[in-house]
């Protein structure tokens, strides 16, 4: 016995209402001194027991009505006949005999016995003393209205050989033939799980029409998350027949992911008695092979106008046959959908594509204009396309924001008139190498980092923080409150702060003001100890240059870019990690050999703070003299800038975020989707800025945000490379996964065979096969609301009649 609307079962507690009324009535009696007691007593002598019995009967009926009503509203579903018999029918029959005892006292012994027999039997059967029949209450599937969720795989892989057309046809055909009273929901699985309507609908015809308009334009599916969602929806259904129909091409890649949703699904299924059945409709088509552009990468990650960038793409032949080699193909580079370069086998010596082996193709390109561009690499196979089942994955894009200027403010805490003696001299040189080396020469590669140096004494936040992305505090003793407040706001609004220490630093001020709980601009506090010695070599240390996990230093995993352990660190501030609360908020990026933190990162608001335990000049370290200095400072700067800019290359389903000046809050922004449909989105205020967010990114491709006072911003939503894997999972493997993991009753309909043009009959279609299977199965459980309603009505009428009859007591 279970309930489709379980929460309403608690309504049965309403049975206490008549009970309480009865008890209150009994406890709030009037006291009447009475003389004619001999008249009353003789009546009582004859009727006391009888009146008590009648009152008990009326009380039982009054209590039973709310209980049955609650069971009826909670939509009780009976899975075993014996349970319904023992818990509902027999007690009601016993009540009937009790009424007969009251009505026909001359046969009271007989009726009492029958009443007791009913109750005893029910009790014994329910406790298992008497074996009761375990006959399941089931109904033939085809006669039942159903609550169905169709999980429709609309990922790109469904484009193979028209799989999606078959799925769509099945889905709309199925919805049209649903029984009256059925509810259905169609959930698109690709990218992010998205139902067409938020709640299941009875308008199945309309839903059929809607589902026939769908296309396979989404990213890969998360099977278990989809089943979990479908399970949530189907459990709200009002019918006993609850079914999740998964229409997919059953690619191996989709079933291999074990996501968190599987754990959640298992948990939610644990307590579920009336599990839905899972019907798998396999509409997949076998394919020979597939060519795909697997990855695309632009180096460096920060691109300046006029700077030559390298676009690397990996292409792959995904033919299951390992000996397959694809010879003839071309690769072209497109920027904003315009071809700019093309590589051919004949001229550019492209390697043949051996099955399963990644081939790298690279292009060099310079962006002439600042702004957001989409760089696409496309693979064009020549000749027969049998080996390329999917066309969508033959191209891959990446968004590149070319910058013409990137403001970095260097606050110099120890200026000097002599060349390279100032605290920020080396840093400025490293950030703007071309400008510094020969400022008169016309630039071939534009130095897009615009580093401005300012002495601490002249640092005016209102003036100098304009148009800056990163601020470097180099050996700054202390700042005034106004400067600290301005820096705090700068970081929270998406600025980067790089704090380099040194001999000028006032450790107490740093800890108490800069790193105070209110400002929070210091990742780790300084212990008042400066370690090491400038003169004593034995006290020098080195940076631990093992494998760097952090992206800011990942470049140094390749030793060709320099070895951080080459430079002596003479002196350093010991950063205090003992405050666990603060240490948790900060990430140590790199350490010294003494195990002291060297480079620490902390995120705050939309910005990021980097703290370096040493100075940035050569006073405390030998870093500026080493070849890794330039890449180091640039990588840290780039990292900081990347962190503070919202990402524009995202996986499907992620949210597109773009910040705008605060003046544009509440303005309207147009988001154009890859299929050229567009949405209007309102910007929302965010601190001193405005933010645009857009979440409907199920469809891979290029999204463009444009508005009145803004340059168009492009976002690229990438389909998972897994979508290009077209290997199919077998029925046995699916069954193994669904049965073992989920415990669902699973049905499998194989509609993967291609329909032959001749002799095609309706019964051979996916829907035909499904209906044939459906005819043969039955569903456990029967809804009992009609019987319960009848019982309630009967009890109400009985109560009214008995109340009248019981008024007439025998003298």
């Amino acid at each position, binding site marked *: 016995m279970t309930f489709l609307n379980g929460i309403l079962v608690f309504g049965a507690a309403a049975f206490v209402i008549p009970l309480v009324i009865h008890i209150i009535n009994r406890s709030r009696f*009037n006291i009447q001194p009475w003389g004619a*007691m001999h008249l009353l007593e003789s009546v009582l002598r004859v009727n006391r027991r009888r009146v008590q019995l009648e*009152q008990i009967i009326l009380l039982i009926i009054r209590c039973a009505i709310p209980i049955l009503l609650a069971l009826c509203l909670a939509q009780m579903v009976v899975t075993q006949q014996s349970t319904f018999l023992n818990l509902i029918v027999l007690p009601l029959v016993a009540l009937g005999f009790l009424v007969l005892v009251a009505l026909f006292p001359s046969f009271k012994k007989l009726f009492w016995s029958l009443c007791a027999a009913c109750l005893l039997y029910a009790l014994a059967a329910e406790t298992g003393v008497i074996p009761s029949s375990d006959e399941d209450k089931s109904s033939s599937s085809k006669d039942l209205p159903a609550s169905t969720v169709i999980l429709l795989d609309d990922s790109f892989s469904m484009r193979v050989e028209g799989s999606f057309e078959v799925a769509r046809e099945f889905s709309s055909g199925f919805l049209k033939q649903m029984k009256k009273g059925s509810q259905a929901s169609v959930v698109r699985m690709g990218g992010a799980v998205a139902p067409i309507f938020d709640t299941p609908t009875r308008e199945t015809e309309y839903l059929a029409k809607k589902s026939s308009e769908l296309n396979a334009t989404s990213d890969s599916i998360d099977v278990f998350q989809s089943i979990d969602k479908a399970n949530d929806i189907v459990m709200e259904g009002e019918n006993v027949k609850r079914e999740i129909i998964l229409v997919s091409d059953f690619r191996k890649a989709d079933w291999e992911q074990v996501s968190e949703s599987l754990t959640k699904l298992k948990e939610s299924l644990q307590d579920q008695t009336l599990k839905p059945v899972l019907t798998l409709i396999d509409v997949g088509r076998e394919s020979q092979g597939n060519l795909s552009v697997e990855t695309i990468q632009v180096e460096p990650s920060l691109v300046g106008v006029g700077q030559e960038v390298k676009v690397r793409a990996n292409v792959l032949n995904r033919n299951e046959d390992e000996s397959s080699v694809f010879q003839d193909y071309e690769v072209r580079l497109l920027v904003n959908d315009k071809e700019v370069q093309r590589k051919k086998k004949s001229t550019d010596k492209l390697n043949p594509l051996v099955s399963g082996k990644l081939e790298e193709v690279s292009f060099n390109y310079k962006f002439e204009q600042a702004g957001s561009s989409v760089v696409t690499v496309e693979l064009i196979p020549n000749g027969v396309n049998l080996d390329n089942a999917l066309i969508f994955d033959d191209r891959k894009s990446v968004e590149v924001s070319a910058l013409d200027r990137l403001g970095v403010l260097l606050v110099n805490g120890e200026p000097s008139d002599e060349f390279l003696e100032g605290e920020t001299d080396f840093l400025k040189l490293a950030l703007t190498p071309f400008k510094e080396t020969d400022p008169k020469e016309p630039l071939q590669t534009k130095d897009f980092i615009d580093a401005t140096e300012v002495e601490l004494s002249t640092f005016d936040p209102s003036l100098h923080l304009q148009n800056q992305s990163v601020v470097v505090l180099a050996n700054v003793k202390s700042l005034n409150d106004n400067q600290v407040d301005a820096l705090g706001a700068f970081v929270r609004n998406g600025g980067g702060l790089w704090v380099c220490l040194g001999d000028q630093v006032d450790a107490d001020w740093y800890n108490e003001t800069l790193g105070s709980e209110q400002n929070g601009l210091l990742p780790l506090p300084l212990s008042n100890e400066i370690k090491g010695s400038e003169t004593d070599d034995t006290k020098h240390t080195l940076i631990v240059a093992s494998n760097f996990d952090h992206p800011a230093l990942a470049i140094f995993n390749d030793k060709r870019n320099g070895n951080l352990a080459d430079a002596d660190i003479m002196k350093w501030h010991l950063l205090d990690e003992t405050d666990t609360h603060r240490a948790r908020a900060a990430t140590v990026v790199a350490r010294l050999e003494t195990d002291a933190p060297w480079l620490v990162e902390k995120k705050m608001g939309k910005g990021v703070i980097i703290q370096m335990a040493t100075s940035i000049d050569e006073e405390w370290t030998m870093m500026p003299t080493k070849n890794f200095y330039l890449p180091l400072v640039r990588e840290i700067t780039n990292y900081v800038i990347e962190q503070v800019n919202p990402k524009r290359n995202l996986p499907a389903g992620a949210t597109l975020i773009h910040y705008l000046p605060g003046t544009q809050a509440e303005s309207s922004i147009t988001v154009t989707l890859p299929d050229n449909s567009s949405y209007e989105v309102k910007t929302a205020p965010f601190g001193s800025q405005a933010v645009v967010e857009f979440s409907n990114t199920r469809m891979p491709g290029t999204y463009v945000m444009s508005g009145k006072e803004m340059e168009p911003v492009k976002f690229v939503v990438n389909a998972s490379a897994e979508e290009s894997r077209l290997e199919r999972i077998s029925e046995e493997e699916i069954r193994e996964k669904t049965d073992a993991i989920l415990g669902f009753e699973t049905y499998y309909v194989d509609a993967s065979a291609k329909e032959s043009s001749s002799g095609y009959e309706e019964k051979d279609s996916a829907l035909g096969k499904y209906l044939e299977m459906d005819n043969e199965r039955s569903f456990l459980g029967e809804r009992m609301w009609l019987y319960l309603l009848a019982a309630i009505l009967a009890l109400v009428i009985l109560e009214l009649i008995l109340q009248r009859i019981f008024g007439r007591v025998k003298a």
Partner: protein
Amino acid sequence: MAKVTDYLDPKDLARLANHQVLAKRVVEGFCSGLHRSPHKGFSVEFKQHRQYVHGDEIRHLDWKVYGKSDRFYIREYEEETNLRCNILLDASGSMAYEGTRTEGRSKLHYASRLAACLSYMILRQTDSVGLITFDVKSRKILPPRGQAAHVRNLIDVLEDTTPGGETDLGAVFHELVPKLKRRGLVIIISDCFGDLDSVMKGLAHFRHAKHDVVIFQIWDPDELDFPFRQWTRFDCLEIDEKQHTVDPVHLREAYLENLENYREKFTQGCHRNRIDLVPMTTDQPYAEALSYYLALRKRGGPPSRK
């Protein structure tokens, strides 16, 4: 000390002024009077003139007085027997019942006034009246006297009577019969609750002693229509421990049926013993019921039952 007017309302007395309490059977008295005596007296000593009232025998008219004054007067002689009337007033617990519609007047309150009124009427017609209050046995016995001032004694006794104790009418009647040595009128004012057989036997005992018995059965309207609706605990007025908590709605019909049976049987019993049974309800002015009954009695009609 109670005022006489507390018990004897002039309005009620005025209403009853033209009525006499007459014995229907032959009763024994010391004097010859209104009532037929089994003793034949020779003494014809004149005692007094009395105004003629309707029903007096014409042969007793004093025609001389009529000749002188043109008014009808009856000559009364000493040897004409007078009525000895005993009023038996039930003062048991059940008589303490105060109904919901009688403004706090108990059945005993009603019965006392009825007793006082009857006594006054009897004394007014120069008969003698006595009062016996009882519950399980007789409590106070005031022997019959014929003086007008006797009414004061009666009212004092009535004033001192408080309801309480159980009822056993049969036993009380058996106890009293030997005490009432001369035949006379016995007026029982009671609710007559108790074992019906025992009561009937007691009454038969009175009849056997040749008393003329009249029962004024006092009912409270609540006892007749059982108007209770809510859960009620009925506390017995006679025995403290006796309580019953019931839903009166369920019992009403049975109670009324039971009451009907009881009254039927009691009426039949009284009829069999040729006892006048006069049921009275406490919401009904007693003078009205009494005058109706007395008028009927004079005509020799059957006792009414309202």
